[in-house]
C-alpha cells in the first residue's frame, strides 16, 4: 500500500507501483488538470510539485512518491488565485490551454525557489514545458510581472 498526500489530502494506492503518478492523478482521483503530453518527461504538460519541486508526473512512479506531498494545479491555491494564475489571466496567456497547468506549476516552483529570477533562470526553468500554440512571449510577461511584484 502506497500512501501519500495530494493537495493536502491523504491518499492510498494499492495498484501497480510502476504506474506513473500522472495516471493515478487523472484516472483514479479525477484530477484532470494535469495533462498527458508525451509520457517521457519531454514536454512538461504533466508538471506537478513533489515536496515543493516541479517534476514530470508522467515519469515518476507511484512507488517513488510513497510518503510524499504532491500538489497539482487544482491544489496550487484554494481559490485558484495564485499570483501566477492571476497574471496568466491578466496577460491572457493561453491559446488552447492544454499545456498551461504545466506552465503555471513549473513557474510557481521557480518563483518559490527564486522569487526574482533573471531571464536566464526563467529560461532554464521554463524550457522543459512545451507550448505548441506559441504562447512563450506571454508566459515571459506573466512570470516577469509576478517576479517584479506587479501581479
Amino acid at each position: 500500500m502506497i500512501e501519500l498526500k495530494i493537495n493536502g489530502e491523504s491518499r492510498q494506492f494499492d495498484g501497480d507501483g510502476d504506474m506513473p503518478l500522472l495516471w493515478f492523478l487523472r484516472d483514479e482521483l479525477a484530477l484532470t488538470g494535469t495533462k498527458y503530453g508525451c509520457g517521457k518527461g519531454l514536454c512538461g504538460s504533466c508538471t506537478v510539485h513533489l515536496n515543493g519541486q516541479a517534476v514530470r508526473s508522467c515519469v515518476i512512479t507511484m512507488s517513488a512518491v510513497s510518503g510524499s506531498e504532491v500538489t497539482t494545479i487544482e491544489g496550487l491555491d484554494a481559490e485558484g488565485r495564485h499570483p501566477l494564475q492571476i497574471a496568466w489571466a491578466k496577460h491572457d496567456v493561453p491559446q488552447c490551454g492544454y499545456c498551461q497547468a504545466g506552465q503555471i506549476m513549473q513557474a510557481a516552483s521557480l518563483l518559490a525557489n527564486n522569487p526574482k529570477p533573471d531571464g536566464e533562470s526563467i529560461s532554464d526553468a521554463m524550457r522543459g514545458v512545451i507550448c505548441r500554440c506559441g504562447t512563450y512571449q506571454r508566459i515571459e510577461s506573466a512570470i516577469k510581472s509576478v517576479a517584479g511584484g506587479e501581479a
Partner: protein
Amino acid sequence: MSRHVQNLAPPFARKALAAEVSRGVDQAVVRNVSRRDFLKAGGVLVVGVSLYASGAAGTVAKAATSGDSGQGDPWTPDVYVTVEADGTVRIISHRCEMGQGIKTSLPAVVADEMEADWSRVVVEQATGDKKYGDQSTGGSLSVITFYQRMREAGASVRAMFEQAGAQYWQVDVADCRAENHRVVHGPSGKSADFAELVQIASALTVPATDQLKLKTPEQYRYIGKELHSVDLEDIVQGKAVYGADVRLPGMKYAAIARPPVVLGKVKSFNADKAKAVAGVERVVELPAAQAPVAYKSLGGVAVIANNSWAALKARDLLEIEWDDGPNADYNSKAFKEELLKAVRQPGEAVRNEGDFDAAAAAADQVLEAEYYAPHLNHMMMEPPAATASVTAEGCEIWAPTQDPQSLIPMAAEVTGLPPEKIRVNMTLCGGAFGRKGKGDYVDEAVRLSKEVGAPVRVQWSREDEVRHGYYHTVSAQHLAAALDDKGQVTGWRHRLAYPTIFSIFNPEATSPQTLELGLGALTLPYAIDSIRLEKGGVPAKVRIGWLRSVCAIFQSFGINVFTDEIARARGKDPLENLLELLGPDRTIDLTSFGMENKEGHPFETGRLRGVVELAAEKGGWGRELPAGHGLGIAAQYSFDSYAASVVEVAVSEDGSWSVPRVVMTVDCGQVVNLDRAVAQQEGAAIMGLGFVRHGRITAKDGRIEQGNFNNARVMRYGEHPKTEVHFVQNHLAPSGIGEPGVPPFAPALANAIFAATGKRFRELPIGSKV
C-alpha cells in the same frame, strides 16, 4: 470529384466547393422561436439564426419575413440567442475551439450588435448537428463565413428590445436605443434593463434582415477590441475539459497498436504478456483499413483496461506480426529524388500567361533554384483521445473535434444506428492545427465501445500520433526567372510536385489540386508578363492531411526565397525588388486560375503591398544592424488575408543562430478580437520558426522514423523572439487570422540568414546551425 470527396472535403476546400458541396451559406434567417418553443418557460426570449442554406431555406425565409406564428415545417434554428428572465444572455458557439478564440470572438460579435453587457453573457458550446450549418472548423473560415450572420442575429435582438422599450413606455421606437443591456428612451432619459423588457420582447416578431440597422465601426463595443477567452479562468485553474478529461461511469480505457505502415494488416498476434498486466480486461482486433483511408480507423490490436496506464503498458507488450502492405516501399530519401525528378521536367501547366520559353530564350540571365520541404506533424500538445458510449439505443461521443458532423455518418456506419441516434459532444481541443478534423480516433472509440458493451476512452500516446498521424505533405519546387539586359524580370516559371491531400479520399489522386495550388502558387501576384505554373504527379504513401496554413507553408517559402534570390541577382534591395514585382495596385481575378472570387473578398495586390510597407516600416528595414545580424522580408496572400514578416536573425561565429525580433503585419479587414488576433500571429511566428529550425518527419520502409518531442522537435521557451504584431486598420470584410501569419515567416527568416551570412538555404528545416 466523387461524392465521397465532396462529403469529406477539407474545410479550406469547402467554401470553394460550395456549388458542389451542399453546405453553402447563402442566407441568414433570423426568427423568434420564443412563442412556439419556449413560451411555456415564460419571459424568455430565444432568437435563432439559420446558417444552413438547405433546400428548406426558402420556406424558412418566407415564414420568417411574414411573421410566422409557428406553423408549417418543423424548424430548428442554428444559433440560439437566449435572454433569460434575469437578463442573462446565452449564446451558442457552434464552431470548434482549439486555441484560436472563436468561442469568444463570434459570440462577442452577437453581443456587440445586440448591445449586451459581455459580463452578462454566457457562451455555450454546441454539439455536432447539421442544424448549425457548417461546423467544420478550419481554413481560417469561421469569421469569414459567420461574421455577417452573427451581426444580423445580434442586431435583430437589439431591434426587438428597442421595440419592447417603445411598447413599455408607449413611445416612438425611433426614440429608443439599446445601450449596454438597457434600452434608453432619449427624450425622457428613462431606461430599462433587458431583464425588464424580455417578456415583451419575447412576444415580438423578428424584424426582416433588410430592416436591420447594423452598427457603424465607431459604435462597436467589442468588435476590434481585446476580449479575453471565455474559458480563461477554467484553463488557468485546471478545470477546462479536453478530450481525455471526459469520465463516464463504467468507462474502459483503450490503447491501440496500429499497423506501422499505412494500409498494413495484422498477420498474427500473441496477447499473452499483455493480458498478464493487472487491469487488462480484453484484447480486441480492429479491422484493417482499406483505401480510401479518409478518416477511418487504421486497424490494429486494442487493449481494453480499467486504467490508461495498464492499457498503454499492455499495448506495448503485444507481440504482433504485421503484413506491411503496399506502402512499405516508402523511403523519404528516395522519395525526395523522385520529387526532384518530377520538377526537373515539364509538368502539366495550370497557369500560363505570356510565353515563358520565349522570355527565357531572349533573357540576359535565367535564374534557377530548387526547394524542398519535408513532411510535418501537427504536434498539438493534446494527442488524439475520444470517448464513446454505444448502446442499442444510441451512440454518444465526446471528442476534441474540428469536424463534429463528419463523425455522425462514421458512427452510424459502425453501429448501424440511424444518424439521429448519434450525439457528438465537442470538448475543447488541446491544439488541433487541422489534425482533429480527421476523426480516426473517434472511429476507434466507437468500434471499441460497441465491441465491449461499455463506454470506452481511446488514448493515443505521443508516439502513436507522431507515427500514425496525417502528415503535412512533402514537396519539391523548381523555380526559374528570366531577366532581360536591363535587369527586368520578364518571365517566371514555377514547377512543383507533392502528394495531394485528396489522396486520402481518392487513391487515384496523384497531383496537387486547385485548392492546394491556390494557397500561394496559382495566386502569384507579381506583375510579370510571362508566368507559368506546372505541376507534377507523385503518389501518396502516408496519410496526407492539412496542417495550419497547408500548402501556403512551402509554396510561400519557395516563392519568397526565390524572390530574394532575384533581388540579389538584380543587385536590388529585397524590399524594393518585392514592391517592384508586386507592380501597380490591381485586383486579380481568381476565376482566371479556376478559383472563386469570394464576395467581399477580392484579391487586391495593393493590400499585399500595404502589409509589406507596414512590416518594413515597423521592422526598421534598412537600419544599421550589429555584426552577424540580418533582416529578411516576405509577404503572402492566403486565406483571403494579407500578411508580411520582417525577421531579424543573429548568427554567431559558430553558426548557431537566434531570432531576436520579428514584426508580423496582417491585413485581415476588420479585426474582430484584437487580443486573439495578436495571439494568433505570435503563435504563427513560433510555429514558422519551428518549421525552419526543427520541423521534419521522415519515413523508412513505410515507417515514420520519429516518435516523440526528442526527435520530432518543436520550439521551446527561450527560443522565442520578441514578436510585434501590427494590423492594417480598416473596416473591410473580415478574413482569416489563424493561418495567414505562418507562411511569410519561414522565407523571411531564410532571407534574413542570407543577409547575415551570404548562405542561401532552399530546404527546410535549416536546422540549429548555418
